[in-house]
Protein backbone atom coordinates (compact mmCIF):
# COMPACT_ATOMS: atom_id res chain seq x y z
CA UNK A 1 0.00 0.00 0.00
CA UNK A 2 1.09 3.57 -0.53
CA UNK A 3 1.19 4.41 3.18
CA UNK A 4 3.30 1.39 3.95
CA UNK A 5 5.69 2.17 1.14
CA UNK A 6 6.16 5.79 2.19
CA UNK A 7 6.75 4.66 5.72
CA UNK A 8 9.30 2.12 4.49
CA UNK A 9 11.19 4.93 2.73
CA UNK A 10 11.28 6.95 5.92
CA UNK A 11 12.43 4.08 8.07
CA UNK A 12 15.06 2.81 5.65
CA UNK A 13 16.31 6.37 5.06
CA UNK A 14 16.90 6.77 8.78
CA UNK A 15 18.48 3.31 9.16
CA UNK A 16 20.67 3.91 6.14
CA UNK A 17 22.08 7.14 7.56
CA UNK A 18 22.67 5.34 10.83
CA UNK A 19 24.41 2.25 9.43
CA UNK A 20 26.36 4.35 6.93
CA UNK A 21 27.84 6.60 9.61
CA UNK A 22 28.68 3.54 11.68
CA UNK A 23 30.56 1.91 8.81
CA UNK A 24 32.24 5.13 7.64
CA UNK A 25 32.82 6.52 11.14
CA UNK A 26 30.93 9.65 10.16
CA UNK A 27 29.42 11.20 7.06
CA UNK A 28 25.78 10.93 6.06
CA UNK A 29 23.54 9.10 3.64
CA UNK A 30 19.90 8.77 2.70
CA UNK A 31 17.32 7.75 0.16
CA UNK A 32 14.40 9.60 -1.39
CA UNK A 33 11.86 9.37 -4.18
CA UNK A 34 13.22 10.45 -7.54
CA UNK A 35 9.88 12.09 -8.25
CA UNK A 36 8.13 13.23 -5.04
CA UNK A 37 4.95 14.05 -6.94
CA UNK A 38 4.54 10.47 -8.12
CA UNK A 39 5.13 8.19 -5.13
CA UNK A 40 3.30 5.24 -6.60
CA UNK A 41 5.62 4.86 -9.54
CA UNK A 42 8.74 6.87 -8.83
CA UNK A 43 12.15 5.28 -8.52
CA UNK A 44 14.42 5.72 -5.51
CA UNK A 45 17.58 7.84 -5.42
CA UNK A 46 20.45 7.10 -3.06
CA UNK A 47 22.88 9.73 -1.86
CA UNK A 48 25.96 9.21 0.30
CA UNK A 49 28.66 11.48 1.66
CA UNK A 50 31.72 9.94 3.32
CA UNK A 51 33.03 12.01 6.26
CA UNK A 52 34.78 15.22 5.28
CA UNK A 53 34.04 14.78 1.60
CA UNK A 54 31.68 16.89 -0.48
CA UNK A 55 28.38 15.55 -1.69
CA UNK A 56 28.84 14.19 -5.19
CA UNK A 57 26.92 11.86 -7.41
CA UNK A 58 27.15 8.37 -6.03
CA UNK A 59 28.96 7.32 -9.21
CA UNK A 60 32.04 9.26 -8.09
CA UNK A 61 32.58 7.15 -4.98
CA UNK A 62 35.52 4.75 -5.08
CA UNK A 63 35.06 1.02 -5.62
CA UNK A 64 35.42 0.23 -1.92
CA UNK A 65 33.22 3.15 -0.89
CA UNK A 66 30.50 1.91 -3.27
CA UNK A 67 30.63 -1.60 -1.82
CA UNK A 68 30.46 -0.33 1.75
CA UNK A 69 27.63 2.10 0.92
CA UNK A 70 25.63 -0.67 -0.78
CA UNK A 71 26.16 -2.95 2.21
CA UNK A 72 24.94 -0.13 4.47
CA UNK A 73 21.81 0.12 2.34
CA UNK A 74 21.11 -3.61 2.51
CA UNK A 75 21.65 -3.69 6.27
CA UNK A 76 19.29 -0.70 6.52
CA UNK A 77 16.67 -2.76 4.64
CA UNK A 78 17.23 -5.72 6.99
CA UNK A 79 16.88 -3.51 10.03
CA UNK A 80 13.48 -2.38 8.78
CA UNK A 81 12.35 -5.83 7.64
CA UNK A 82 14.58 -8.46 9.27
CA UNK A 83 15.33 -11.41 7.09
CA UNK A 84 15.96 -14.77 8.81
CA UNK A 85 19.00 -15.53 6.66
CA UNK A 86 21.31 -13.65 4.33
CA UNK A 87 23.60 -15.05 1.62
CA UNK A 88 26.54 -12.91 0.48
CA UNK A 89 28.89 -13.83 -2.37
CA UNK A 90 32.28 -12.06 -2.25
CA UNK A 91 30.80 -8.72 -1.13
CA UNK A 92 34.08 -7.97 0.69
CA UNK A 93 36.28 -8.17 -2.42
CA UNK A 94 36.79 -4.40 -2.82
CA UNK A 95 37.15 -3.50 0.87
CA UNK A 96 40.46 -2.49 2.45
CA UNK A 97 41.37 -3.90 5.89
CA UNK A 98 39.79 -1.10 7.93
CA UNK A 99 36.48 -1.15 6.05
CA UNK A 100 36.46 -4.95 6.13
CA UNK A 101 36.76 -4.94 9.93
CA UNK A 102 33.90 -2.48 10.29
CA UNK A 103 31.71 -4.54 8.00
CA UNK A 104 32.57 -7.72 9.95
CA UNK A 105 31.81 -6.01 13.28
CA UNK A 106 28.36 -5.12 11.97
CA UNK A 107 27.75 -8.64 10.70
CA UNK A 108 28.69 -10.01 14.11
CA UNK A 109 26.19 -7.73 15.82
CA UNK A 110 23.46 -9.02 13.52
CA UNK A 111 24.20 -12.75 13.60
CA UNK A 112 22.06 -13.43 16.65
CA UNK A 113 18.93 -12.68 14.66
CA UNK A 114 20.18 -13.38 11.13
CA UNK A 115 21.92 -16.49 9.86
CA UNK A 116 24.74 -15.50 7.45
CA UNK A 117 26.33 -17.50 4.68
CA UNK A 118 29.23 -15.60 3.14
CA UNK A 119 31.44 -16.74 0.27
CA UNK A 120 34.86 -15.17 0.66
CA UNK A 121 38.57 -15.29 -0.19
CA UNK A 122 39.37 -13.06 2.80
CA UNK A 123 41.09 -14.42 5.92
CA UNK A 124 39.63 -11.86 8.29
CA UNK A 125 36.16 -12.89 7.20
CA UNK A 126 37.01 -16.55 7.81
CA UNK A 127 38.22 -15.71 11.32
CA UNK A 128 34.87 -14.15 12.17
CA UNK A 129 32.93 -17.20 10.95
CA UNK A 130 31.43 -19.66 13.42
CA UNK A 131 31.67 -22.38 10.82
CA UNK A 132 33.66 -22.82 7.61
CA UNK A 133 32.99 -24.96 4.55
CA UNK A 134 35.65 -25.41 1.88
CA UNK A 135 35.09 -26.42 -1.74
CA UNK A 136 37.53 -28.31 -3.92
CA UNK A 137 37.33 -29.79 -7.40
CA UNK A 138 40.04 -32.46 -7.63
CA UNK A 139 37.85 -34.10 -10.26
CA UNK A 140 36.91 -31.40 -12.80
CA UNK A 141 33.29 -30.22 -12.67
CA UNK A 142 32.64 -32.14 -9.46
CA UNK A 143 32.58 -30.14 -6.20
CA UNK A 144 33.64 -31.72 -2.91
CA UNK A 145 32.57 -29.89 0.25
CA UNK A 146 34.65 -30.14 3.43
CA UNK A 147 34.16 -28.85 6.96
CA UNK A 148 37.11 -26.72 7.98
CA UNK A 149 38.66 -25.14 11.05
CA UNK A 150 41.21 -22.37 11.30
CA UNK A 151 44.57 -23.76 12.39
CA UNK A 152 45.43 -21.49 15.30
CA UNK A 153 49.18 -21.76 14.67
CA UNK A 154 49.22 -21.20 10.93
CA UNK A 155 46.13 -19.03 10.88
CA UNK A 156 45.07 -20.99 7.83
CA UNK A 157 41.96 -23.12 7.34
CA UNK A 158 42.49 -26.86 7.46
CA UNK A 159 40.18 -29.65 6.40
CA UNK A 160 38.68 -31.49 9.36
CA UNK A 161 36.18 -33.87 7.81
CA UNK A 162 35.44 -35.60 4.59
CA UNK A 163 32.40 -34.29 2.80
CA UNK A 164 28.98 -35.38 4.03
CA UNK A 165 27.76 -37.26 1.04
Amino acid sequence: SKIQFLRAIQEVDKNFDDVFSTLFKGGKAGIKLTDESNPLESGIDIFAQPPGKKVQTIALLSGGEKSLTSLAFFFALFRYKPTPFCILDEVDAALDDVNLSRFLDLMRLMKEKTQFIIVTHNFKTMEVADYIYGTTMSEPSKTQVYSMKIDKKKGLPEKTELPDT
Partner: protein
Amino acid sequence: MHIKKLELQGFKSFPDRTKIIIHPGITAVIGPNGTGKSNIVDAFLWVLGGQRLKALRGDRSEDIIFNGNSQKAPMSMADVSLFLQDDREEIIINHRVFRSGESDYRLNGKSVRLKDIQDTLWKYSIGEKEYFVIEQGSIGLFLTSKPIEKRGLLEEAA
Protein backbone atom coordinates in the same frame (compact mmCIF):
# COMPACT_ATOMS: atom_id res chain seq x y z
CA MET B 1 13.28 -19.32 11.34
CA HIS B 2 16.63 -20.61 10.16
CA ILE B 3 18.21 -22.88 7.58
CA LYS B 4 19.12 -26.38 8.75
CA LYS B 5 20.39 -28.07 5.64
CA LEU B 6 20.79 -27.80 1.87
CA GLU B 7 20.81 -30.98 -0.21
CA LEU B 8 21.91 -31.02 -3.82
CA GLN B 9 21.97 -33.77 -6.40
CA GLY B 10 22.63 -33.41 -10.10
CA PHE B 11 22.68 -29.62 -9.67
CA LYS B 12 25.51 -27.91 -11.56
CA SER B 13 28.82 -29.18 -10.15
CA PHE B 14 27.15 -31.53 -7.63
CA PRO B 15 26.50 -34.80 -9.47
CA ASP B 16 26.45 -36.90 -6.29
CA ARG B 17 24.09 -36.21 -3.46
CA THR B 18 25.67 -33.62 -1.18
CA LYS B 19 24.26 -32.57 2.19
CA ILE B 20 25.42 -29.22 3.59
CA ILE B 21 24.36 -28.64 7.18
CA ILE B 22 23.99 -24.93 7.95
CA HIS B 23 24.67 -23.90 11.56
CA PRO B 24 23.42 -20.79 13.38
CA GLY B 25 25.57 -17.66 13.18
CA ILE B 26 28.06 -16.98 10.39
CA THR B 27 29.09 -19.66 7.89
CA ALA B 28 31.98 -18.88 5.55
CA VAL B 29 32.32 -20.73 2.24
CA ILE B 30 35.88 -20.73 0.91
CA GLY B 31 37.91 -22.41 -1.82
CA PRO B 32 39.82 -21.90 -5.06
CA ASN B 33 38.30 -20.30 -8.16
CA GLY B 34 35.78 -22.36 -10.06
CA THR B 35 35.27 -25.02 -7.39
CA GLY B 36 31.54 -24.46 -6.79
CA LYS B 37 31.04 -21.79 -4.09
CA SER B 38 28.75 -19.58 -6.20
CA ASN B 39 26.97 -22.71 -7.42
CA ILE B 40 25.87 -23.23 -3.80
CA VAL B 41 24.48 -19.68 -3.77
CA ASP B 42 22.72 -20.46 -7.07
CA ALA B 43 21.18 -23.54 -5.46
CA PHE B 44 19.57 -21.41 -2.74
CA LEU B 45 18.14 -19.03 -5.34
CA TRP B 46 16.99 -21.86 -7.57
CA VAL B 47 15.24 -23.96 -4.93
CA LEU B 48 13.26 -20.89 -3.83
CA GLY B 49 12.03 -20.43 -7.38
CA GLY B 50 14.62 -17.83 -8.14
CA GLN B 51 13.63 -15.46 -10.84
CA ARG B 52 16.94 -14.00 -9.84
CA LEU B 53 18.96 -16.86 -11.23
CA LYS B 54 19.76 -14.67 -14.18
CA ALA B 55 20.19 -16.10 -17.62
CA LEU B 56 23.71 -14.86 -17.03
CA ARG B 57 24.46 -17.66 -14.61
CA GLY B 58 22.34 -20.12 -16.48
CA ASP B 59 18.78 -20.99 -15.63
CA ARG B 60 17.98 -23.31 -18.52
CA SER B 61 17.83 -26.99 -17.68
CA GLU B 62 21.05 -27.71 -19.57
CA ASP B 63 22.88 -25.15 -17.41
CA ILE B 64 21.28 -26.34 -14.17
CA ILE B 65 21.76 -30.10 -14.53
CA PHE B 66 25.23 -31.61 -14.13
CA ASN B 67 26.50 -31.87 -17.69
CA GLY B 68 29.30 -34.35 -17.20
CA ASN B 69 33.08 -34.51 -17.32
CA SER B 70 35.60 -36.97 -18.73
CA GLN B 71 34.69 -39.55 -16.09
CA LYS B 72 30.98 -39.03 -15.50
CA ALA B 73 28.17 -38.80 -17.99
CA PRO B 74 25.73 -35.90 -17.91
CA MET B 75 22.79 -36.49 -15.60
CA SER B 76 19.12 -36.25 -16.44
CA MET B 77 17.80 -34.40 -13.40
CA ALA B 78 18.77 -31.70 -10.93
CA ASP B 79 17.28 -31.86 -7.43
CA VAL B 80 17.73 -29.37 -4.59
CA SER B 81 16.05 -29.50 -1.17
CA LEU B 82 16.14 -26.77 1.46
CA PHE B 83 15.36 -27.71 5.06
CA LEU B 84 14.11 -24.80 7.18
CA GLN B 85 13.10 -24.72 10.81
CA ASP B 86 10.72 -22.34 12.55
CA ASP B 87 10.51 -23.17 16.28
CA ARG B 88 9.17 -26.73 16.25
CA GLU B 89 8.07 -26.74 12.65
CA GLU B 90 10.23 -28.13 9.87
CA ILE B 91 9.65 -26.88 6.32
CA ILE B 92 11.15 -28.73 3.37
CA ILE B 93 11.20 -27.01 -0.02
CA ASN B 94 12.23 -29.02 -3.06
CA HIS B 95 12.74 -28.10 -6.71
CA ARG B 96 13.54 -30.55 -9.48
CA VAL B 97 14.08 -30.13 -13.19
CA PHE B 98 14.55 -32.68 -15.98
CA ARG B 99 16.44 -32.37 -19.28
CA SER B 100 13.08 -31.95 -21.01
CA GLY B 101 12.62 -28.73 -19.06
CA GLU B 102 9.81 -30.27 -17.04
CA SER B 103 10.05 -29.02 -13.47
CA ASP B 104 8.41 -29.71 -10.16
CA TYR B 105 8.16 -27.96 -6.78
CA ARG B 106 7.39 -29.71 -3.51
CA LEU B 107 6.50 -28.36 -0.08
CA ASN B 108 6.95 -30.92 2.70
CA GLY B 109 6.79 -33.67 0.13
CA LYS B 110 3.60 -32.52 -1.53
CA SER B 111 3.71 -31.31 -5.12
CA VAL B 112 2.70 -27.62 -5.29
CA ARG B 113 2.88 -24.63 -7.58
CA LEU B 114 5.71 -22.14 -7.19
CA LYS B 115 3.13 -19.63 -5.97
CA ASP B 116 2.32 -21.81 -2.95
CA ILE B 117 5.99 -21.90 -2.01
CA GLN B 118 6.25 -18.13 -2.32
CA ASP B 119 3.11 -17.63 -0.21
CA THR B 120 4.49 -19.89 2.51
CA LEU B 121 7.85 -18.11 2.54
CA TRP B 122 6.13 -14.76 2.62
CA LYS B 123 4.75 -15.62 6.08
CA TYR B 124 8.37 -15.84 7.29
CA SER B 125 9.49 -12.58 5.68
CA ILE B 126 11.27 -14.40 2.90
CA GLY B 127 10.46 -12.32 -0.13
CA GLU B 128 10.23 -13.20 -3.77
CA LYS B 129 12.94 -10.87 -4.98
CA GLU B 130 15.35 -12.49 -2.56
CA TYR B 131 16.83 -9.20 -1.44
CA PHE B 132 18.69 -11.20 1.19
CA VAL B 133 20.94 -12.76 -1.48
CA ILE B 134 23.74 -10.60 -2.86
CA GLU B 135 25.35 -12.38 -5.81
CA GLN B 136 28.98 -12.23 -6.84
CA GLY B 137 29.76 -9.00 -8.67
CA SER B 138 26.45 -7.32 -7.88
CA ILE B 139 27.50 -5.33 -4.80
CA GLY B 140 29.64 -3.07 -6.94
CA LEU B 141 26.86 -2.48 -9.46
CA PHE B 142 23.95 -1.91 -7.11
CA LEU B 143 24.41 1.82 -6.54
CA THR B 144 24.47 2.63 -10.23
CA SER B 145 21.38 0.54 -11.00
CA LYS B 146 18.22 2.28 -12.19
CA PRO B 147 16.10 4.09 -9.56
CA ILE B 148 13.20 1.83 -10.53
CA GLU B 149 15.19 -1.27 -9.58
CA LYS B 150 16.05 0.23 -6.20
CA ARG B 151 12.35 0.88 -5.72
CA GLY B 152 11.72 -2.79 -6.43
CA LEU B 153 13.94 -3.83 -3.53
CA LEU B 154 12.29 -1.40 -1.18
CA GLU B 155 8.81 -2.54 -2.20
CA GLU B 156 9.86 -6.09 -1.51
CA ALA B 157 10.89 -5.18 2.03
CA ALA B 158 7.87 -2.94 2.64
